[in-house]
């Protein structure tokens, strides 16, 4: 895209947030990619097809209700208690002084699996800015994708709206299913900005709606029960998470004493931040 600075107008690389010539903020790369007219147009076409399909099967009213429910959808990340505790304690000087230094890449061997997996994802999905993204899932009830950390953290809409985009499903699985190789463009119509997320959900999920579908089923339609299918709407959030972006946390009571202590500490701090918390 061209730099938004009228006095510059130079081409901003796809992966770069700032114009490399004049330094103006060109917007976060994932949101820019989802806002491209071709992308929006292709998605609109899919939405139209979905709406027609709903009409054919007599599920238009259900679709309307589904849409309304999706307006209240949120992004949820699943993390371990350790990471969440660190996040909510990030303004704590003790944490800032002593916990920030934990780093493992000192001891990772060459050609290790962790680097390989991340580099592979980087080259396939978001060349040069993969490390800047956080991956979340879209949820209606605060539950996250099963099996990726005991704590589900629901994020405030206001904290992510301007820097998030959504994708049809887990991006890596999508690429494999569509046999896309590094350097190929992704097919159009499978991503959207955060504010247009309802459209993507409609385009993807309408075919699962029947006239008998009730609102209690919406969450399981949105997020498949088998996590390995990658069947959820993936949210891509640019930039780090701040503790004040947390709206709600739901957690399972840990088994280990040390984790129970962390949970208690974390819960107290969440309440101080104005976030809510449920422990099962």
């Amino acid at each position: 895209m061209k730099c938004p600075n009228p006095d510059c107008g130079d081409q901003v690389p796809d992966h770069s947030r700032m114009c490399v010539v004049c330094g103006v903020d060109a917007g976060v790369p994932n949101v820019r990619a989802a806002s491209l007219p071709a992308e929006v147009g292709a998605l609109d076409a899919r939405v139209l097809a979905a709406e027609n399909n709903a009409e054919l099967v007599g599920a238009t009213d259900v679709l309307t209700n589904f849409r309304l429910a999706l307006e209240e959808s949120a992004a949820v990340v699943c993390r371990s208690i350790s990471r969440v505790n660190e996040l909510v304690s990030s303004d704590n000087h003790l944490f800032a002084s002593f916990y920030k230094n934990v780093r493992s890449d000192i001891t990772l061997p060459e050609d290790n699996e962790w680097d390989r997996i991340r580099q592979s994802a980087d080259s396939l999905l978001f060349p040069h800015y993969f490390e800047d993204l956080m991956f979340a899932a879209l949820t209606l009830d605060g539950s996250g994708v099963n099996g990726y950390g005991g704590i589900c953290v629901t994020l405030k809409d206001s904290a992510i709206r301007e820097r998030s985009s959504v994708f049809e499903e887990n991006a890596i699985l999508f690429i494999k299913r569509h046999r896309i190789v590094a350097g190929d463009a992704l097919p159009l119509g499978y991503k959207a900005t955060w504010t247009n997320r309802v459209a993507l959900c409609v385009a993807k999920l309408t075919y699962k709606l029947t006239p008998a579908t009730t609102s209690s089923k919406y969450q399981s339609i949105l997020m498949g029960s088998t996590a390995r299918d990658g069947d959820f709407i993936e949210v891509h959030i640019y930039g780090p998470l701040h503790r004040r972006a947390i709206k709600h946390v739901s957690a399972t009571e840990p088994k280990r004493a040390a984790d129970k202590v962390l949970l208690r500490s974390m819960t107290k701090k969440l309440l101080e931040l104005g976030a809510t918390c449920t422990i099962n």
Partner: protein
Amino acid sequence: MRALISGQASTAVLFCDERVYSVTLDAPENRREREEWEILWLFADTTDVEQVECEDEPKVLQTLELAWEKDRSLQLIIILLDSKEDIELRLSAATCLDPFLENSSVREFVENRMYSAPLPSSADLAGAIHQCSESKLQFVTALLLALDEDQVAINQRVSAWEALPTSLFGGSAEKVAFHSDAVHFGAFRVFATERGRKSWAIVQLLNHPHFRGSATARAVFKEWAAPFHETATATEFKRAQDEQSVYVDIETEVHRSKRTIKPRQAFEQAEKQRAAIKILLTQGREEQALRYTKQLIINQRRTSDPEHIAKSLCDLAQFVKGLGSPELQLEFAKMAIAEAPSDSWSHATVADAYRALSDYPQAQDAYYNAGAFGDERSAMLGRAEVLKDIGQLADALTILDNCVRDFPSDVVGRNARASALANFGRFEEALAAYDAILKDWRDEPVTMAGRAQVLRDMGRSEEALKEFEYIVTLYPDDVISHHSRAETLRDLGRLEAARDTFAVLMKRFPLAAEMQLSFAKTLRDLSNFSEAINQYKAVTKQHPLNLYGYVGLADTYRKSGDLVNALLAYDEIISRAHHTGFARNGKASILALQGAYSDALKLLPTNLPATSSEWVSYHIRAMVYMHSGKLERAESALKWGLVENQWALQRQYFQTALATLRIRQKRYQDSIDLVDSIAHPSVEPIARVLKMHAHGELGEVSVVAQIYNDFRQSAAPSIIQLREALAKRYLVKKPILTMDDSLFRQECNSLLLAA
């Protein structure tokens, strides 16, 4: 089994054949199959992902448990210190934390971080100490008390750190990265806690495997320590008289007055027992030898002073060192310290054993103790030798200069200095140093032998031979000079003469394993591989504690092309002695030859090279890149190695490797320039074939013919093969052209076989 683990996520992902599955600490029996993309979600933004290699799943879980304890311990201590947390929660945190801190590895992890910054004002250290001591949480209390006592020192060290210019690191991002490393490896902690032992901390850090190979790290630590007048070359050894040693002194006095047996009798008794133990050790009967040793100690406690017991044990330690077992040497030396904790010679013996085991931080610690307990000369010499081992010549020379100044009538320090110069390629200076010594100590055998060795290293083998012959005439029982003389015959390619000489020397010095080993090596040079193998096997039987027999066996299998047996032989050595880099290097080079690059790299150290063995490993790493076609990476590694490598011999291996690459890149003159000056007998043959190749491509056929005709008999089979292929390419009327790729491969293979 390979696994990724994260203590923060309390999750492990295991890679087992084609399966990938995860387990968590909360439900270890629950194995979940995983796709690759799921690993990104499992570990998300954790910062402590490690890759581990374990025998089985339980070991992976054990490693994960430790990682989890470390992470939780750090978080718990932060909660404990936080004045904003309620008292009950803080106490719960302390109660959970205490048992974790019983594990020294966890405690060190926490301390490394807690010493990296002074406590902020929100920390309630006094309250935490009070709570923990009231609740009798001994480990937490001890840590907090130490932290309290060290706050001033922490503040000073952190301030000194912050004052370090970013240019020292190469930039602010580099300074941040170095800070992480310094915290992780305990630099802040060591500087603060060891301030009472002058310069001990900087010596330890400069010997640390992660830092010692990095010129930047060395410069950073020196500048960081400078405001505190701490230097790597300091030779003051401060000793704190503690209650324990006072008690020991009193005990000794009481014990002495109770003795009734006469000294002469006691000495003879001990001598007999030691002789019996030595026989057992020679036969490789370690367990029995150790049992007898315990009996020796019990007997000597009744009849001798602690220093005499320590002397007995040190004598056994030196004996077993001669047999080739630094592990046993350490064991005996530690027993000596247990009997006489303030005996400086025992500490020096421990240090020597650690040095042989390549545990340089421990070696430096023990040398420091030797100095603190009165033997400053041994301490200085030992420290200098360790610095030499890790490639820090300048500091080694400084300490040796101090040693010569402080002990002017001691020849050992002066010889050590000359030897250090030679190790790092400063041959002319080494010769001059040896000549200066010989002016004051005419015909001193060690000096003369050192001088002759320098000539050998310079490729001046005829001169070296003459000098060794002179030494053995003057000192007919000097085993080392006899051995070196015969080895020089090998260098000169006079293999039959070398073989016959070693045969005679084996009879003359039947206990000297090095004669038998060299005899076997010469048989190998003569391509009598099966005889060489039999000879090495005989050495392992006669000298079961000597690793070099096993190494020779493995190397012979490798050079003869029997890679299967070579791998088995290297595995045998690795299982006997984990510390030996050369067995891992040998095995890695074979795996690389077989194309198992990933397995080869796993055997090699990941820290920047500093010791001679680490540089060999780094060379093999570069060869793996080259062999696997990663030529850019190979070039980068070789060029860096040529700049940073202080070891004269190792540099020549890097030169030949880079020369091979230059031929591949068709930069023939550059290749010739790299190998022209190579003279060391172990590298010179491969350098010759590369010169043949490069001159051949430049059309200089007469030069090729000259080199071909001057080839020494002792070249390895792979090099002979290469030589012949090149001769057929350039020297015959109807040339037989071997493909460039094939030649490159053969050259890489030769370098790997020679590594």
